């Protein structure tokens, strides 16, 4: 007992000793002692030497109150020589901050004068890092929890190895220059300006909102994105949007590393209010903005007179090709526009521009807020694209026109398929292909499928060519002899008159049988839908439902859709009249509108 007590007491004493001793010496003290010793060597006169000799290490700090929130920067406790010209080029931490005309420093009478005096600005306003930290791990922001590690100089341990290297470099400091300096200033921020340009060139503004710059509403607001995220997250989100947000439908833009870097710098600079602005200036800027709100800037100032030529400039400037294919350019996200004039009429293009989701309800295309004349010019330009593509045999037709969505192997996984909703049909599913009348497929090819991304190709292909493509699909992908579709007894038109009672009955059946996949809202997003490919049909897709006749919908309900998860409900006791009620219910979404 007493031995144990004595041991425990000794442990207590030892820990006390360790803790007490640990407070007697600090890194910053040693750095300051080193500085004092070296400065004494460099001193030119005795007075200076005596002054240095009398100095003892002590905690140095700059309390900067003028820019942004008050900051306490104790960086100078270690970097004590930061404003001592004799230490330019010295090894860190005793290196003097470089002087540079780029930073606004001036050289007069053999002496540099700083533009940004450290006593006024502190350190972290430009460099980030943790001003209150006194040990380099925390001060430099290497702690994974610190939101602002030294910008461009420190990568935190959990940062993705892939992006670590390109995230280093003083170029990133531009993001903080932009905290005070607007782009109109004479300050040179090449990467930042490029990033801002890319933000528009790559059509980021179509989906993302940034105060004073853009009004996109599809993606997250990026006004303060630099405050919220570190460099690695920004980089990763640009390169691989789904890395951080698995449900993101942001396309993978094919950006070069230097473009990503510029965009990261631009995004990092979005950190909320400008500390150099007064509240009055801020208010005026906001008040002035409301007039021009939402107008995307036109990058080329002098537009040609000719509307078609003007439309061409606009389409190019707005980087439609960042998503769409247009001639040689291919954004790899959205359908081919190269011969849009052959496939769509002016009215469709014009309507679709203004509200894409009115015609294709699940389209990811943003509703850009261009002006009416701009819309008209762009519509005219697209309508003018009437040069048919060079087409050869059926295989080449498939490759040129179909493979972009349906995939080279016909399995519906073409390069842009990921971004299309409803997804392109998987043409390898023999069950589906055999269950439908070939004439229907030819019709779909020539007339398109309303409410989906499938365009009508009749402006490009003739009846025979469509038939040839279908034959090609059959021989290359389906690889089964065509079976004659079974004769099914399906009423040609809805046997039940659409009345309130019928709709109510239909709704009841729908809730019982259909919601698991099609969802309570009938938008195809029921709880089971995530496990089902192809996805359940969005039954609120007006253009599709309106364009599809009763017979086809009734057949899908009663006999199922082979090759998909839709079962033949006639086997589960649904009568033709029940199907009629369901159909009335589904169609009621559209009439109600």
């Amino acid at each position, binding site marked *: 007992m007493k031995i144990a*007590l004595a041991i425990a007491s000794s442990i*207590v004493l030892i820990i006390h000793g360790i*803790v007490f001793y640990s407070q007697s010496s600090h890194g910053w003290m040693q750095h300051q002692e080193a500085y004092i010793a070296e400065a004494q060597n460099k001193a030119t006169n005795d007075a200076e030497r005596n002054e240095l000799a009398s100095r003892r290490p002590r*905690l140095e700090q700059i309390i900067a109150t003028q820019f942004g929130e008050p900051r306490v920067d104790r960086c100078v406790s270690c970097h004590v020589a930061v404003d001592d010209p004799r230490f330019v080029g010295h090894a860190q931490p005793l290196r003097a901050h470089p002087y540079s005309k780029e930073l606004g420093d001036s050289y007069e009478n053999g002496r540099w004068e700083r533009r940004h005096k450290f006593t006024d600005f502190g350190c972290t306003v430009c460099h980030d890092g943790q001003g*209150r*930290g*006194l040990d380099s791990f925390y001060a430099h922001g290497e702690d994974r929890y610190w*939101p602002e590690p030294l910008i461009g100089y420190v990568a935190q341990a959990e940062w993705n190895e892939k992006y670590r290297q390109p995230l280093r470099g003083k170029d990133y400091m531009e993001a903080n220059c932009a905290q005070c300096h607007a782009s109109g200033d004479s300050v040179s921020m090449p990467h930042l300006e490029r990033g801002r340009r890319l933000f528009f060139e790559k059509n980021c503004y179509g989906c993302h909102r940034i105060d004073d710059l853009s009004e996109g509403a599809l993606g997250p607001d990026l006004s303060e994105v630099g405050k919220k995220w570190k460099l690695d997250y920004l980089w990763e989100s640009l390169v691989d949007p789904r890395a951080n947000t698995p449900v993101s439908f942001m396309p993978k833009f094919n950006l070069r590393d230097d473009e990503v870097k510029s965009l990261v710098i631009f995004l990092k600079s979005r950190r909320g209010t400008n500390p150099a602005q007064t509240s009055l200036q801020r208010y005026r800027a906001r008040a002035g903005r409301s007039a021009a709100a939402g107008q995307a800037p036109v990058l080329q100032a002098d537009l040609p007179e000719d509307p078609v030529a003007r439309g061409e400039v606009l389409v190019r400037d707005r980087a439609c090709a960042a998503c769409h294919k247009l001639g040689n350019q291919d954004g790899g996200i959205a359908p081919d526009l190269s011969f849009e004039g052959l496939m769509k009429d002016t009215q469709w293009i014009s309507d679709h521009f203004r509200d894409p989701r009115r015609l294709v309800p699940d389209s990811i295309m943003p509703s850009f807020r261009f002006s009416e004349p701009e819309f008209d010019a762009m519509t005219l330009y697209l309508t003018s694209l009437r040069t048919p593509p060079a087409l050869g045999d059926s295989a080449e037709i498939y490759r040129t026109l179909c493979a972009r969505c349906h995939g080279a192997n016909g399995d519906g996984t073409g390069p842009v398929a990921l971004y299309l909703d409803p997804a392109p049909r998987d043409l390898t599913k023999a069950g589906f292909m055999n269950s439908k009348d070939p004439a229907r497929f030819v019709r779909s090819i020539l007339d398109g499928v309303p409410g989906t991304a499938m365009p009508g190709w009749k402006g490009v292909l003739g009846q025979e060519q469509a038939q040839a493509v279908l034959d090609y699909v059959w021989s290359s992908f389906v690889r089964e002899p065509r079976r004659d579709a079974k004769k099914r007894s399906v009423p040609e038109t809805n046997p039940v008159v659409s009345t309130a009672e019928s709709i109510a009955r239909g709704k009841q059946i729908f809730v019982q049988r259909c919601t698991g996949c099609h969802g309570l809202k009938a938008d195809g997003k029921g709880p089971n839908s995530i496990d089902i490919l192809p996805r359940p049909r969005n039954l609120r897709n007006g253009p599709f439902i309106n364009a599809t006749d009763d017979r086809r919908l009734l057949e899908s309900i009663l006999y199922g859709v082979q090759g998909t998860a839709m079962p033949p409900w006639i086997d589960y006791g649904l009568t033709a009249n029940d199907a009629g009620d369901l159909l009335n219910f589904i169609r009621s979404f559209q009439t109600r509108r």
Partner: protein
Amino acid sequence: MERLIQLPRLVWDSIFRHPLPETDLGRATTSFNNFFLHLHPVKVHRNTLRPAYTLGLGLISLFLFIMLVVSGVLLMFYYVPSTAQAYDRMLDLRGTVAFGTFLRNMHRWAAHGMVALVFFHMCRVFFTGAYKAPREFNWVIGVGLFLLTLLASFTGYLLPWDQLAFWAITVGTSIAGYAPVVGQDVRFLLLGDHAVGQEALLRFYVLHVVVLPVVITLLVTIHFWRIRKDGGLSRPEEPEPTATTLPVGTRYGLMGFVRGPLTKSGNVPDNAVFSWPNLLIAELFVFVLTVAGVLAVSLLFNAPLEEPVNVMHPPNPAKAPWYFLGLQEMVSYSAFWGGVGIPTLEVLLLLLIPYLDRRTEGVGRWFAKERLLANSLFLLFSVINIILIAIGTFFRGPNWTFVTPW
């Protein structure tokens, strides 16, 4: 002159009225006449001193509480309960303030330790059947102390004003909001606002540094006082002593029991030993061990400090403090039952245990055979809660999905 020489001696004697006791009488008088020692009985039962019986859990809890008060008061010198400054003060504690990190570590780990130790103490009391008559009410006070400990730890959780704190309190108080009828009002009262913010920080600060410690001190005092009034610590029943009954009609002063031969003819004459030095040494030992443990942990592990609060950006998953993660786990199945129904039932059951379970067999022994059912039920209750907490702590990842920690 001679008086002057005697002065130190006089001052000393005025403070310590007795020399180190050599005799039993001296030992008893020391206990009586010393403010700190008179909380102790003059004599304690041998069973009280058996480490294997109590494991010292209650004492450790007390000492942790004292350490928390001391380190907490010191931390108050640098803390500012303001949303603008609280986090910066944490950084200063870590960066500039001498011993700041260490004191914060001590406070943090002692707080977590106290939550755990109070719970273990409760388990000990249950498994030894020590809550039975006449100690029913002391058990109730103990349950109250346990809840207050949780509350004290919970209110302290917010004070660093980092992401961990902010979202843990947001989640924790939201759980409270599930209570029927009064839930939202309680939450509003606690937060002083509809969301965690400056008002909540100030309220939690006041609760944490004044209200709860005072209440806990008061209840701890009553808890200890009642131990004596309830006849010391629980112990196994002993054969009826062949005691000489005291002459009826004679009044005895308190000292009378100690001075005379009657000490030896009391209720349990042969099993009682003097508190001085036996109990005191044992207490000192537990104290030193507790201090050593907390110091060692504080030296080795730093208290977490996460990002500064970002109201717009909850971490995924946002977790309550670990001792509420069992609740959060249950809330993920059913908001009402997990957050309010089951916890309320649990607390009610805990409070009523001594009044429901009135059999007196098996008191004073660990896992007495006679109490197999009760002990099994309580063990099940504890294990389920511990498992739920473990699941919530280690096995829940982003979006509250199951993850494996390894």
